[in-house]
């Protein structure tokens, strides 16, 4: 059935590809890689802010997945399984560098005391694709610990209790770091906007 479909040039479905990959079918691995490579690489890139490192981690995440694919029983979505694996690979790498969590007392210059007026910058409205690119660039400038939690919560949609479990911190620490990350992003984006406004 699958072979016939392939001869007709039809694309394998994810479920078919998983079953074929369990049998060691080369093309099935490629189909799975192509289905998920962008999401995994984007996650790695956002969490590390380094393209070369993100590629190495993408490779490692897929290799872990392919080595264990025979054990996949379909209790959870395949993409969820792969995604969690990718997050673990990235966090492992960040842990090696000692960059996963910024301790609560380690207060980098987020200006939380009182909201200040920023030299005439407009409200942030991140609607267009260029604005999203600016946000993406600003995320890359966050300290690694803040970046991990911001990416996991605000971009990838993990809850604080899940983040606390994955990273091994308290829920309160996760919430605190998320707030600091957002404050830092606001500062970065408004500074950038103000610079643009001043520049003719």
């Amino acid at each position, binding site marked *: 059935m699958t072979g016939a479909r*392939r001869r007709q*040039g*039809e*694309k*394998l479905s994810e479920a078919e590809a998983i079953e074929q990959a369990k*049998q*060691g*079918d*080369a*093309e099935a*691995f*490629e189909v799975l*890689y*192509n289905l998920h*490579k*962008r*999401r995994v*690489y*984007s*996650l790695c*890139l*956002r969490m590390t802010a380094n393209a070369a490192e993100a*590629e190495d981690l*993408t*490779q490692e995440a*897929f*290799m872990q997945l*392919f*080595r264990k694919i025979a054990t996949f029983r379909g209790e959870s979505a395949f993409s969820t399984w792969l995604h969690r694996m990718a997050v673990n690979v990235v966090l492992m790498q960040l842990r090696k560098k000692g960059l996963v969590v910024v301790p609560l007392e380690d207060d980098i210059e987020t200006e*939380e*005391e*009182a*909201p*200040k*007026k920023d030299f005439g910058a407009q*409200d*942030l409205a*991140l*609607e*267009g*694709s*260029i*604005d*999203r690119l*600016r*946000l993406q660039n600003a*995320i890359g400038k966050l300290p690694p610990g803040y970046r991990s939690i*911001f990416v996991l919560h*605000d*971009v990838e*949609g993990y809850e604080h209790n899940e983040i606390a479990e994955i990273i091994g911190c308290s829920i309160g620490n996760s*919430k605190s770091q*998320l*707030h600091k990350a*957002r*404050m830092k992003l*606001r500062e970065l*984006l408004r500074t950038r906007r103000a610079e*643009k406004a001043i520049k*003719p």
Partner: protein
Amino acid sequence: MTCIEFQDILGDMIDGETDAQHAAHLSSCSSCSELVSDLRAIASGAKLLCADSEPSPRVWANIQRTLEAEGIIRPATQPGATLFRQRRPWSSVWLATGAAVVLLALAAFFYTNHTTRNQQVAQTQPQSLGASADDMELLSHVSPAARASYADDLETVNAFIRDAEDNVAQNPNDDEARHFLVQAYQERAMVYASAMDRSMP
């Protein structure tokens, strides 16, 4: 409620409900109101970030090699299967390489060109219009298994180019806008180069 007291609950409030006391403070304090609006814009903007970055072909090549070396992939039994493809004909290589070179040359030209907005728009339009025929040609050389994925990639990168072109047209003197356009062209060239690697024999 003072701004300091408001700051203490701010983190929880961004993702949750605003109660009457907080709402009263927000309506009377423009600084806090602006802050909340910005933080909410950041949180909602992050949800719209797409998984649009693509790893280079090197990643799949390494994975494939490792899978082979570890014996996870069994040898293909059909001619033309992924791992045992014959070398592609030079015509496909030159097609994709040529397209990538043209795109990069256009990107470099655009980046260094500081002419007026109208001139820039005039220069970018033919590029956009000519792209789809090239895309179709390129896709016809890609294996059926990967075709849909490349079609998606091209659609994404073409949308990025259109946005970046519009942005340059609106802000002709903005270095960042030009940088995004060059980046968009480079991403398109990367898709072409990757597809070239995967073209059918």
